[in-house]
């Protein structure tokens, strides 16, 4: 009897130990690539036959727009700073966009510039003087009128070296504080030092802060002002009520909003740090909007009462070959770089690592951008045979039979050096860790040895920005709406920007600089097509894929349309059933 009891006991304990070691499920391979999907609830259709006419009129009854109600947006981390010129993180961005406006905003359909606080603007012949005509019917949340002084104050604060604005670098050599001139209460003129193609879309887009509240503060007081964390005052559709750190931010409707009083009453920004819990809360109705992790995407789309959208983003996953011969000589020959890219099945990576919610990059410019060349052919589609051919051509052959190619007459590489290198990425990011393992396997099939290494984030940052001690690294990045890509490909961006691998092509430098010096879209498009062609040939840092963001929201919230350009242009019109 005792033995039987003991046996059961042991079995139970062992079973529990197995449970305790449970690891999260590996991602399933999804066969179909998910295209941009918008799942919406069916609208009830009524067929009405109008007497006397031959036609059949179809009347669609939509849910009636109601006033009032609360909706809750959830993010994985708390906001950091609610002052639009001091913040630097995504979480603060949502709340700031609900409370503040800029001179202009972007039209989510095509990223063109449309009015916000400025109702129109004139650009001078030489493209260096821009005059904005501001609305005269705008009030701050505390009732004070909005005027051109607020605009002047905002930009001068950004330019102030003692104020900790991380945005200041945008204006280096571009705008001097004395060249911001208030012509009258509702007219303001900016005179730039040079032509800047991204001025109108991006550099003048910063949200405006109130001069009557912050104007008297010293820079130090500005940096530590209560305005930043407990008393923000803006012009936007919602105004601030409270911020309980790590928990939520509460905003209420601003009935005097200049585009019309918001339809809903209250907005909450809630912090939920775990993706599974966030989805659970979406299901119970405790939150109304949340990003949904790719692993839960299928389930989310099948859930009743939830609308979901997978939309393309400007952010992407890429890897860089270190091109500094002092760090590694292996990747100097362009054929080596092209061959390694051909050996990767990027579509398979997008399907299984990103659950199909990513688009394989055919160029460094995503299709989302107006500068994308629609005639870009497929960029190095998966072809391991071609890869091996190119590697042979470049001089990499496996003559000692160990499965790894060595150099025999390879550019810049000593004979006998094996094509073996460390493949690094940041630890703790599942997508990237899975990528390096996949890449190792693809490369092993063509005789290349990649050693995956996961490095702690801060240590990796040191490697990428200070010491450059790496051979191949996988990281992510994201472009701005403006198609300029100087930060990654320009010679000057090594050490001062995001050019991680010391890539330098003086011809490309000239093209990039020229594209920044004009605002003519056609000229820029032409130059960017050239840029794409050069980068397609040289592949210094191949982009693996552009991500799609996956977001779901409760069907009772109407009018909300997430996208990577601007989702707040109609924030005051979102309504709750």
């Amino acid at each position, binding site marked *: 009897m005792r033995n039987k009891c003991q046996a059961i006991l042991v079995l139970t304990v062992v079973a529990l130990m197995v449970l305790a070691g449970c690891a999260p499920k590996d991602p399933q391979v999804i066969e179909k690539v998910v295209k941009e999907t918008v799942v919406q609830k069916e609208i009830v259709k009524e067929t009405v036959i109008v007497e006397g006419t031959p036609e059949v009129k179809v009347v669609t009854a939509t849910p009636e727009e109601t006033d009032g109600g609360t909706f809750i947006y959830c993010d994985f981390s708390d906001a950091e700073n609610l002052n639009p010129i001091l913040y630097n993180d995504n979480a603060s961005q949502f709340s700031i966009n609900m409370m503040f406006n800029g001179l202009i905003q972007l039209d989510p359909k095509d990223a063109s510039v449309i009015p916000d606080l400025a109702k129109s603007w004139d650009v001078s012949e030489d493209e260096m003087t821009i005059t904005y005509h501001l609305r005269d019917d705008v009030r701050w949340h505390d009732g004070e009128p909005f005027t051109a002084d607020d605009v002047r104050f905002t930009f001068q604060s950004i330019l102030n070296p003692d104020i900790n604005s991380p945005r200041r670098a945008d204006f280096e050599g571009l705008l001097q504080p004395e060249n911001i001139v208030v012509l009258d209460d509702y007219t303001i003129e900016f005179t730039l030092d040079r032509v800047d193609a991204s001025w109108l879309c991006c550099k003048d887009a910063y949200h405006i802060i109130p001069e009557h509240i912050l104007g008297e503060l010293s820079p130090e007081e500005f940096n530590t002002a209560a305005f930043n964390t407990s008393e923000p005052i803006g012009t936007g559709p919602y105004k601030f009520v409270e911020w*309980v750190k790590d928990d939520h931010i509460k905003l209420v409707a601003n009935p005097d909003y200049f585009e019309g009083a918001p339809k809903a009453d209250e907005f909450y920004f809630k912090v939920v*740090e775990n993706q599974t819990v966030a989805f659970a809360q979406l299901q119970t109705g405790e939150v109304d909007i949340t990003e949904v992790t790719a692993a839960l995407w299928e389930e989310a789309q099948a859930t009743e009462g939830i609308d979901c959208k997978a939309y393309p983003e400007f952010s992407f996953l890429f890897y860089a070959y270190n091109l500094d011969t002092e760090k590694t000589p292996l990747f100097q020959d362009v054929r080596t770089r092209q061959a390694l890219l051909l050996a990767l099945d990027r579509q398979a990576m997008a399907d299984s690592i990103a659950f199909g919610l990513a688009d394989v990059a055919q160029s460094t410019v995503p299709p989302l951008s107006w500068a994308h060349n629609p005639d870009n052919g497929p960029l190095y589609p998966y072809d391991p045979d071609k890869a091996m051919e190119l590697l042979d051509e470049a001089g990499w052959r496996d003559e000692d039979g160990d499965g790894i190619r060595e150099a025999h007459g390879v550019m810049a590489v000593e004979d006998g050096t094996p094509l073996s290198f460390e493949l690094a990425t940041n630890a703790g990011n599942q997508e990237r860790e899975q990528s390096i393992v996949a890449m190792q396997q693809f490369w092993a099939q063509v005789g290349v040895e990649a050693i995956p290494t996961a490095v702690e984030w801060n240590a990796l940052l040191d490697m990428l920005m200070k010491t450059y001690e790496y051979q191949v690294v996988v990281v992510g990045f994201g472009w701005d709406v403006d198609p300029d890509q100087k930060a990654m490909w320009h010679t000057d961006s090594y050490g001062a920007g995001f050019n991680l691998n010391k890539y330098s092509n003086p011809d490309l430098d000239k093209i990039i600089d020229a594209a920044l010096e004009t605002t003519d879209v056609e000229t820029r498009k032409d130059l960017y097509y050239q840029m794409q062609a050069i980068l397609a040939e040289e592949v210094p840092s191949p982009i693996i894929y552009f991500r799609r963001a996956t977001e779901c929201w409760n069907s009772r919230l109407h009018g909300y349309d997430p996208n990577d350009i601007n989702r707040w242009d109609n924030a005051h019109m979102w309504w709750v059933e």
Partner: protein
Amino acid sequence: MSRFIAQRLLQAIPVFLVITLITFVLINLTPGGPLARLELDKDIKPADIERIRTNMGLDQPMWKRYLVWLGVVPNSRGEFAGLLEGEMGISYIDQTSVAENILDRLPNTLLLTVSSLLISLLIAIPLGVISAVKRHTLLDNVATVLSTAGVSIPAFWFGLMAILLFSVKLRWLPSGGMYTLGQEQSRWDLLKHLLMPASILSILNVAGWNRYVRSSMLEVLGQDYLRTARAKGLGERLVIVRHALRNALIPVATLIGLSLPSLVGGALVTETIFGWPGMGRLAYHAATKRDYPIIMGVLVISSLMVLLGSLLSDVAYMALDPRIRAD
């Protein structure tokens, strides 16, 4: 006794200072720093990062920054504003007061951890006693298995399963936060939100307490004075509760003192899963973002708790057990 306490308090001061010094050095030596995120942003030039670095005082040598933090050396404005003056500085991330950040979260964490401790003890003590008294029976074995389960199964899995069951499937309890958003903050609402996280947290601790009470009881049950009590004609229940249990609880009481720091440190995983705005999350975020003032602030509180806890536990031991007072 009072001499003992005074002696210990005096000893605690240099220990505390050394702890702060070591922590300060260690966090400053880890790679990265509060400006690391800015360095990765392609729109921010190095000149701007250097400017912000100077504005924040991060360009000063480490020893000087430590002494400024301590309050022995004046800061850039010429003021003495460090620990010795009762100031803990401001966060690097949003420039809010460290003391305020901590005081906002501390009550939340204490609510969670103290409730969970109470639940743990309420379950563990009777369970441990019964296990000891009915040693090696089915009840004892089942209790052992269950407590081993509680300690082995990861907290986050337990938490997530509880949420999926009680919140999503059954809709009995809310799945996170301290209060329901958009409603009046009532006690009842708070209790509903507290129930799951406190229970999950206590499941993990019950095992430890249970085993401890059990072995302590077992030791006491073998003592001669119990045999005397039984010989006097005392009923078994009184023997156990009035004599055995009281003696068995002495080591347990001292253990509670030692667990004081964990009450404050917060239960990071539980807090994260249930969205509880507490010290655990504060400390974790501060660590990942290298927000040195907050890290140091949390450290000051926790090391004070450790020193206080061990002192209290020694005092409790001496107070409860007359045999020890001799020294």
